[in-house]
């Protein structure tokens, strides 16, 4: 498990996925190639399932494009831990089934090389030898996340016969 550490604030959607590709790339594999291209060109080649991103304030600000959340979910990123998130990105992550953890204390505590583990069920992030708790999502959102994203959630609702 690797940690990608981007401590600066306001990492926007263009840095996470350049706008010039938004209408020609829409699947996970297409998106992966350009993920974080203008922020960290080495990211796409280095990231693996189970890795974690640690970032500063207002992560994901800007566009409503879902390529960042979809792409990060596609590669199997374990979680993004940030001091705060922009709202469309936050919402989009729930829609994709990507775990976001808001904890400025955890972000502040992290130093390069620290071991990071996440236990979503317990609402805990362990950084080095310290444990930070993060609040659970409201039930409605948790259900979407557990179902693996909004469209899987809708499929399950339809299968149960309680869809719209």
């Amino acid at each position, binding site marked *: 498990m690797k940690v990608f550490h981007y401590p600066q604030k306001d990492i926007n959607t263009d*840095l996470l996925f350049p706008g010039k590709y938004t209408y020609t790339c829409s699947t996970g594999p297409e998106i992966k190639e350009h993920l974080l291209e203008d922020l960290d060109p080495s990211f796409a080649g280095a990231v693996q399932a189970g890795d974690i991103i640690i970032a500063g304030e207002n992560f994901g600000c800007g566009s409503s494009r879902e390529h960042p959340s979809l792409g990060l979910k596609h590669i199997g990123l374990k979680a993004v831990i940030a001091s705060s998130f922009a709202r469309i990105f936050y919402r*989009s992550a729930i829609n994709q089934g990507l775990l976001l953890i808001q904890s400025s204390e955890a972000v502040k505590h992290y130093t390069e090389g620290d071991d990071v583990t996440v236990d979503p069920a317990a609402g805990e992030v362990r950084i080095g030898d310290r444990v930070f708790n993060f609040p659970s999502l409201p039930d409605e959102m948790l259900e979407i996340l557990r179902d693996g994203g909004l469209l899987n959630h809708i499929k399950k609702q339809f299968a149960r016969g309680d869809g719209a």
Partner: protein
Amino acid sequence: MGDTFAIKILSRAAGKKVREGEIVFVEPDYILTHDNSSAIVGKFESTVPGGRVRYPERIAIVLDHVIPAASSKHAAGHRKVREFVREQGIANFYDIGTGVCHQVMPEVGLVQPGSIVVGSDSHTCTYGAFNCFATGIDRTEAAGIWITGRTWFKVPRTINIELTGSFSAGVSAKDLILTIIGDVGAGGANYMAVEFNGPAVGGLRICDRMTIANMGIEMGAKIAAFPANIVTSKYFEALDVPITDAIWSDFDAEYARTLEYDLENIVPVIACPHQVDNVVPVEEMAGMKIDQIFLGTCTNGRVEDLKAAADILRGEKIHSSTRMLVAPASRIEYLKAMKMGIVQDLVTAGAVILPPGCGPCLGAHQGALAPGEKCLSTANRNFKGRMGEKEAEIYLSSPETAAVSALTGTIRDPREVLK
């Protein structure tokens, strides 16, 4: 204490009194999507193969982002959207050349005071200018709403912005909203609603309100809204759309924060690379050489914006050291500008007119920048790489500042000319 606009409009939609922080499920009045509809169609079809959209009359699709198609891949996307709207009986479809979605939606009467609108575009907040609760969502959620007709909102807290006074010569709505974003910060209104109140609101034109509401997202806001008043009524009267559902905050609403701005004190400002909240007075940047000037977008592509530029450029020449691109926000605005002689003035001065659409704003086609070049743009974002080249710099300004700067190819304070 009374309630905010957000509490009142979401309470009405939810059919019960809601409180801040609560999650509510609502059926939006309209769901806007644009070129990204082709990807949304794919998600829709893989989730409910052979299915029908829940409310075809609530779906609006505008092709505006990469128009005309820049490649066969873009063209295939457009074709997929045209086929889908035919199959599903979606009447509110606006093909290339109609304009930028956020200009088209009000023009065709699809946003009305008191309505709830979502769009797979972050600048959907523009419709707050018309007293809408309007906000951006991602493509996946748009597909979900096509299927189910509903979505959820967390009832936001509200920042109140009180406006007094009137603008000085050479200063306009763009300078006000950039100043506010500079103060609040790029994430300062995250998860929150923004309301504009105060005696100056009545004097703001629809175009001013759209410029201001459009940029609410640049401080993280969920919505940025204005009350409906006589200016709003006149706009909808002209469209023959009755206003029946306007709604606004109580006079004693409880706000998370109140900020006050006297328009008299606003000066021309510029957002410098690479964040929209990196705002400085134009005079501090005066003299900096600019390679390209871009006038247009959902922020500043209306006829009033083109006229502000034409009034400065009429009879003059754009300096040979720079180039100027102009994209009218819609066909209707383009026609108005033609009728008023504005297009003639701009072209005579040396401007290049682009089709009504998003143009170079998102960096996917048209008007790309070379590495190291600087662009002065009336758009809403200056993120690194936004216009397609990460080694280029984007500066955001009002149409007045953009036009005055075109005369010398360097950044200039419009108050030098407009007194």
